[in-house]
């Protein structure tokens, strides 16, 4: 059977993650939520520690802690603080607390690298089901609320006047971010999840004239980076997660150059 091959499972995991991250990543870029993504993703390490301590599945622990972190940030942003600094504190404080917590758990011998940088080659069928389930959930939720979210992103006041509550849209995006963190942890690891959110979206910006095309293109470029990164990692025997992000960054550089050339030609 095809799924018996670890490379096929890895490729499918990468594709599922790229789909969800590409769509959500556009909103992260448009709304300047990169630090928001970092804080939520870094909290995943704390989730790993808690799931070891309480003998939960890693997925449960990571999803729960990412969700709590996302909701904390949502509540803080409601109060309109200078968010940059607070998010920086949360992102790095959360990561440090997770690393300390993992070290404190007695008898736990885990390969922390797998959670920091991903370990897509050991993806199981159950992992695949979680990744694709999560990715489809994110895609369906975003698609069904797309217009309301886009209006709220352009201007909260325009949304209010049209009877859309922009805070509700922000909350849904927050929940989706936690879902993507849970989905992507196995593929690229906590440290590079934000990269998978923003780099394909940023690369897609160079070629898109509408928000929808940018989102579709971001997903496609993310998928290309996932497959290309997997292939290159096999060739050069490098870690898959960072290689995928390197390919995505390469695509961004190429896209930006091509965009510049096109602008110069008018």
């Amino acid at each position, binding site marked *: 059977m095809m799924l018996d091959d670890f490379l096929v499972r890895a490729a499918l995991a990468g594709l599922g993650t790229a789909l969800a991250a590409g769509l959500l990543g556009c909103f992260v870029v*448009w*709304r300047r939520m990169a630090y928001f993504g970092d804080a939520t993703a870094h909290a995943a390490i704390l989730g790993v520690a808690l799931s070891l301590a309480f003998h939960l599945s890693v997925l449960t622990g990571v999803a729960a802690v990412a969700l709590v972190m996302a909701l904390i940030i949502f509540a803080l942003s409601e109060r309109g603080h200078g968010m940059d600094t607070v998010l920086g504190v949360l992102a790095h404080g959360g990561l440090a607390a997770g690393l300390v917590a993992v070290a404190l758990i007695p008898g736990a011998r885990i390969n922390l690298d797998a959670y920091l940088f991903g370990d897509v080659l050991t993806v199981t069928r159950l992992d695949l089901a979680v990744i694709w389930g999560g990715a489809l959930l994110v895609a369906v939720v975003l698609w069904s609320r797309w217009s309301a979210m886009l209006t709220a992103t*352009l201007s909260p006041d*325009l949304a*209010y006047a049209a009877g859309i509550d922009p805070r509700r849209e922000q909350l849904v995006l927050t929940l989706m971010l936690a879902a993507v963190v849970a989905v992507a942890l196995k593929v690229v690891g906590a440290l590079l999840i934000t990269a998978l959110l923003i780099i394909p979206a940023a690369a897609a910006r160079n070629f898109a004239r509408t*928000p929808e095309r940018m989102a579709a293109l971001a997903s496609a470029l993310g998928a290309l980076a996932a497959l290309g990164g997997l292939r290159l990692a096999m060739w050069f025997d490098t870690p898959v997660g960072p290689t995928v992000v390197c390919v995505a960054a390469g695509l961004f550089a190429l896209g930006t150059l091509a965009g510049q050339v096109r602008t110069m030609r008018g």
Partner: protein
Amino acid sequence: MSLLSATGIAAAHDGQVVLHDVSLALEPGEIVTIVGPNGSGKSTLLRVLISALKPLRGKVTRAPGLRIGYVPQRLHIDPTLPITVRRFLNLPHGVADPDATTALEHAGVPGVAGQQMASLSGGQFQRVLLARAILGRPQVLMLDEATQGLDQPGSAAFYRQIEAVRAELGCAVLMVSHELHVVMSASDRVICLNGHICCEGTPEVVSAAPAYRELFGTGTGGALALYRHTHDHDHDHDHPHPEIEAAE
């Protein structure tokens, strides 16, 4: 029944109470202008009326199913967000191509549908915002300093467009402005705001009211009469224009 009414509104902006005891009602088809100096709570009041801001006290009542078209003061579109004019007009609900074309014509910007929002001039941008607002067939059109950044002929033309839209759609118009002499000429009713409602009535009544003259000086009275008679022509730009900002 009024389309929209507010009673005893008090509201805060940045933690400061900027509005108190404001009551107003908007009737079908009328053009009402809210004037007032900077910081008088004009924009805050509009945000309360579109439910973007919860009042500290008081209550806003809307006719059931009221459709509001809102034109914000300015709209910053993040440069990372590509969007064509045509796509923008589809927010929040999709509209048919012929309707979009007609709306752009009515707003005075035919033929920009394929352009990026970011490539529009200030005046074109505001007109596209207006086109989007009228596509929802609004019963109330609300404009918040919609002509900021336009020069005087530009904003005069913009307000003539508003009158044309009102004639076409029969909607009520509620707008906020500091450009008294341009705006008031097109209004049925003027509300002079400075934390509370200082005075209100027809443009003639308000411009003669002591409370209004205290806020804006007397210089605008003559200009108002002038514009009242000539605002559908373009030849009046050689008259000296008393600058309202100077009086603030």
